[in-house]
């Protein structure tokens, strides 16, 4: 078994970060995720949003590992998340569904506002990899954990990119609304001046 824990601070408020988390795929940094579907979703009495999503990914395992584990085809992952807007917490747990009789990769991510700066968000990420029942299991665990670390870096860049996209959309909406109002105002002004 191998465990990896890491913390990262995003230079963005919690609201924007969690919006980006739901819109993370597709992104230019990670081509492995091919599909995302919402399987269940509900809001409970405390105002917590529960989501269960199915992720389809294509694992980039090298040839030697795929011969041991199986085919390098499509893999599936199950993601459960809880978001509470009042307490400003988001927790996301993901586990692979494919090959889980040989390997399990459990990841838990928690997003909270930075305790000292509400314009920043802290991500705590914990990954547990377990490989059993095949040769070189320890080696494969090591490889997968390294892979997770690399993907975590891509993931951060992806989040920043998605947040920028969201902010750009908001600006465009604002400009669009402003332009519409200006045009309406001009038309009104012109009509007032018109002798007819």
């Amino acid at each position, binding site marked *: 078994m191998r465990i990896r824990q890491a913390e990262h601070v995003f230079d963005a408020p919690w609201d924007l970060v969690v919006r980006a988390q*739901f819109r993370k795929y597709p992104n230019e940094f990670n081509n492995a995720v091919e*599909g995302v579907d*919402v399987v269940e*979703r509900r809001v409970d009495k405390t105002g917590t949003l529960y989501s269960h999503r*199915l992720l*389809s990914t294509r694992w980039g395992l090298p040839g030697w590992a795929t011969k041991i584990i199986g085919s390098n085809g499509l893999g*599936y992952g199950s993601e459960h998340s809880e978001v509470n807007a009042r307490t400003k917490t988001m927790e996301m747990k993901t586990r692979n569904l494919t090959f889980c009789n040989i390997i*399990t990769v459990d990841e838990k991510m928690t997003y909270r506002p930075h305790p000292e700066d509400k314009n920043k968000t802290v991500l705590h990420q914990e990954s547990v990899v377990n490989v059993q*029942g095949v040769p070189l299991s320890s080696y494969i665990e090591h490889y997968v954990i390294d892979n997770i670390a690399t993907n975590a870096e891509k993931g951060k860049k992806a989040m920043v990119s998605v947040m920028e996209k969201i902010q750009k959309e908001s600006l465009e909406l604002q400009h669009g609304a402003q332009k519409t109002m200006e045009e309406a105002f001009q038309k009104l002004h012109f009509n007032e001046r018109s002798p007819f």
Partner: protein
Amino acid sequence: MNSVGEECNELKRSYDECFNHWFANKFLNGDRNEPCPDLFAKYQSCVKKAIKDKDIELWELERNVLGTEHEKKPPK
């Protein structure tokens, strides 16, 4: 982004757009209503069928395997 079932792509796009809007403008401001119920019902029904068609054991496989009798073991 695609759906696990190609036939669900359009439904997914409509639902995602509705959800993202609700999440940003309503949920984060305290709304506790179910988001986009009609769109979700159609989309969810399509996805569940696709999952079944592709034999993805989503709910059954959400159990612990390693350490139980389901763990793959080397032959004796």
